[in-house]
């Protein structure tokens, strides 16, 4: 009999229809003592319609979530200046602030708003930023994240990553009637949109380097296939549906290839590279153990992956040129898996087992390979770096439910993004 063929009905209309509301509430589980104090004064709004959107609140939440800033409570503000000329610097300094952000939002005709803002150093009264950006109503949230990015960059000298997105899998319902959704949301979890929905598992979302597409695994038709879907149009393509396993897609830095996990007829999983234009498949690893969870180096010349060739799963690195022999990178403990490289390639994040729990660890790739376990949960998996490398988002468990959590890449600040519904898993942070 023919292998069953399945007709896929694309949810073109559903693609990028917004969900009803933001899904997450942020809980800070570990804060930083030396966070920089900043006052983010509510922006003026010249009319009521514009006033419904609170730019300053978004900026304040972003900066607080980064763990690097401590923003002043609004109810402690004795006055609310909207431009540099009306700031009483001595007062703000006495209230303990190092920086102050003031601004205003004004309508500019039909569905158009102008946001102007100024950042000052309270101590020396220096004006650090003065900008105006314009946006339509739907773009106000993104514009606010861009303001936060500029403040973050100006004060810390690190590019902000607030105006980026996260993809994740949300599971609704109970066994055996579960449904799976692939969702893309803003980096703060707001503005979630369903990209794909299925009654069979969805797994392993991976952003293309240009941020325009997601690769993912779908079990629709009961068998795993790898798909690439354009976010803007919803158009998608099945790029790998070989017999057996089709898993763990990872984009090459040039966006032209996918590393993925395929299997032989007798079920041996190895890492392969698929050329998206020619469909040509090249085998990268060849070992009877499980080789999976590939991740490219930035130069596209080598691949990090998980292998249990030595017993338990450990992390290896191999060059993509034929004949290169994998080199083992992790030696502490008997379970180290799913490597993710920091954007500057100085650090490797992965899942490690410690006291029977699964936690996020990082290895310093510059020195002797020191390993630091960052998290304290029992089921912390799926780490993914922010594109500026400052934070790692991962999947955790809270009161029996799958949730997303954040840690700074040094572990000093940790937060949970508590979802309003369902199990949330496998976060993937977009590129800039």
């Amino acid at each position, binding site marked *: 009999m023919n292998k069953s063929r399945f007709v896929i009905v694309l949810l073109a209309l559903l693609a990028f229809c917004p969900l009803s509301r933001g899904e997450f509430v942020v809980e800070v589980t570990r804060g930083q003592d030396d966070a920089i104090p900043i006052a983010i004064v509510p922006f003026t709004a010249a009319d009521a319609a514009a006033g419904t959107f609170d730019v300053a609140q978004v900026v304040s939440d972003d900066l607080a979530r980064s763990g690097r800033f401590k923003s002043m409570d609004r109810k402690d503000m004795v006055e609310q200046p909207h431009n540099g000329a009306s700031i009483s610097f001595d007062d703000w300094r006495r209230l303990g602030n190092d920086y102050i952000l003031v601004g205003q939002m004004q309508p500019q005709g039909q569905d158009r708003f102008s946001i102007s803002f100024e950042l000052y150093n309270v101590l020396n009264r220096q004006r650090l930023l003065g900008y105006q950006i314009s946006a339509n109503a739907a773009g106000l949230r993104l514009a606010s994240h861009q303001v936060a990015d500029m403040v973050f960059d100006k004060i810390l000298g690190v590019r902000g990553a607030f105006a980026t997105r996260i993809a994740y899998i949300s599971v609704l319902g109970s066994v055996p*009637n579960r449904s799976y959704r692939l969702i893309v949301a803003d980096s703060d979890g707001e503005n979630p949109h369903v990209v794909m929905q299925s009654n*069979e598992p969805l797994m392993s979302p991976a952003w293309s380097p240009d941020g325009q597409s997601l690769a993912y695994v779908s079990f629709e038709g009961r068998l795993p296939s790898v798909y690439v879907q354009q976010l803007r149009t919803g158009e998608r393509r099945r790029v790998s549906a070989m017999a057996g396993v089709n898993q763990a897609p990872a984009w090459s830095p040039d966006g032209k290839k996918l590393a993925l996990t395929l299997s032989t007829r007798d079920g041996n999983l190895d890492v392969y590279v698929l050329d998206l234009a020619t469909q040509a498949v090249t085998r990268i690893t060849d070992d009877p153990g499980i080789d999976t969870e590939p991740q490219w180096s930035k130069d596209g010349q080598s691949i990090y992956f998980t292998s249990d060739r030595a017993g338990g799963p450990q992390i290896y690195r191999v060059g993509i040129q034929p004949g290169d022999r994998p080199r083992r990178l992790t030696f502490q403990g008997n379970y180290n898996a799913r490597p993710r490289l920091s954007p500057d390639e100085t650090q490797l994040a992965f899942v490690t087992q410690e006291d029977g729990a699964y936690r996020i660890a990082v290895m310093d790739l510059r020195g002797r390979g020191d390993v630091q376990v960052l998290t304290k949960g029992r089921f912390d998996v799926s780490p993914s770096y922010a594109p500026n490398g400052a934070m790692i988002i991962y999947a955790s468990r809270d009161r029996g439910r799958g949730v997303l959590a954040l840690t700074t890449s040094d572990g000093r600040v940790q937060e949970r993004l508590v979802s309003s519904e369902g199990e949330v898993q496998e976060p993937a942070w977009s590129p800039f």
Partner: protein
Amino acid sequence: MKRIISIACLLAAAALLTGCPKKATTVEPPIAGAQVPAAGQGGASTTNPLGQAGTSGMGTQGANATGLLAKHIIYFDFDKSDIKPEFVEIISVHARNLAAHPNLKMRLEGNTDERGTREYNIGLGERRAQAVRRALMLQGAAESQLTTVSYGAERPAVEGDNEAAWEQNRRVEMVYVP
């Protein structure tokens, strides 16, 4: 214009929620002469291999064998893929059934508990499915009768983050397919 798009989105979402969500995403065309599990019914549709065999007119011999044929799930220890002694006879009965009825086909669905990384668990689930496949082939099932798929930790039989749930999720389901 924007409002029209919003309304279209709402209507589409409403249709999805109130209409027939099971068919909205994946539609499986019926296959003649066989009971095809509806999309989305998940494990519920895979719990009756005897029924599947029955519909294609394939009976089995003896009450005892029938009892074992009704069992179709092989359970595993944590991080293990070797078949435990108590499951050897169940696999034997299915192997004999497959050998006696060469037009029967079986899908072996490998699963793990939730612990560990998701993609590595796909590998473990596949390893379990392959262990059952080899055991079936050693006892007379033909290679062409068997396919494997690994769901890793993605399709648990039971929810819960405790050993009682985990031991029910570390399994291979032997599913007769049309």
